[in-house]
């Protein structure tokens, strides 16, 4: 019994070592901020802070990759989630979007934070300050609504 456990542990260790050699590509960052939402929108500072701390690791080209995110198998998960998140919505491309898309995204942002679907639980467990307080949630929602109204009003 003891022996099997030992072999199992060695096996796992070996798998972990081998898995480091499987290539994973974490999505690349890009320092171009010319279309970035935080740079191009005149949002209140609180809103910009919320976006940066709670959304940007996945929904922008400015992901901060901590050391453990570069170690398999965590890196596989991070690579996949980040790629999918950027495909769905990338705040670094904000200014290029049509008015229609902007309104839709603002609407979805409000819905996602209201229902506490975003930021994802698996992320906030580790990044504690990304877990939004109720106050931060309502700050973000009221900004999305007023921005959306602005766009509808022709701005």
């Amino acid at each position, binding site marked *: 019994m003891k022996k099997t456990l030992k072999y199992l542990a060695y096996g796992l260790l070996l798998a972990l070592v081998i898995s480091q050699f499987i290539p994973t590509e974490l999505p690349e960052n890009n320092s171009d901020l010319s279309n970035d939402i935080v740079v191009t929108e005149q949002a209140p500072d609180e809103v910009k802070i919320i976006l940066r701390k709670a959304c940007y690791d996945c929904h922008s080209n400015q992901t901060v990759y901590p050391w453990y995110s570069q170690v398999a198998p965590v890196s596989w998960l991070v690579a996949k989630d980040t790629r999918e998140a950027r495909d769905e919505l990338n705040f670094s491309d904000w200014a290029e979007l049509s008015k*229609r898309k902007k*309104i*839709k995204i603002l609407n979805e942002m409000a819905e996602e934070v209201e229902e506490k679907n975003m930021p994802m639980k698996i992320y906030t467990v580790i990044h504690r300050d990304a877990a939004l307080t109720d106050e931060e949630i309502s700050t973000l929602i009221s900004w999305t609504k007023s921005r959306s*109204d602005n766009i*509808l009003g022709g701005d």
Partner: protein
Amino acid sequence: MKRSGILFVLSAFVLASFIQMNISKNAKTESESNPLEEYKFPKKVKAIIDKSCYGCHSVDGKSDDAKDALRWDKMHEYDKAKLVSVMDDIIEVTGEKKMPPKKFLEKKPDWKPTDKEYQTLSKWADKEAGKLLK
């Protein structure tokens, strides 16, 4: 005394069933009036929605996901921002022919819009969004 007691119970019964009847009658008229009328849809568009979409995206729908995504019968209650975003969703799903879901169409192929119908829906949604953004 005993008699009037029975009479009382009886009349309460009659009254109650009367109210009951009225309620169900009201409920019926409510579901009979087609809510699609409340938002102005061109005839051509309405026919496509009725054929291909309404069953899932209305009170009658069984999937909550579908109803959360879009309610044709609640369209008139959406605010402008919500309407614009719904129109954008419709343009997306008709462009990619993602709706009705593939699996569902295998069972009910007659719900499938023709290419032309997909285009009609898409163009209509584009126009609606354009009007709101004017």
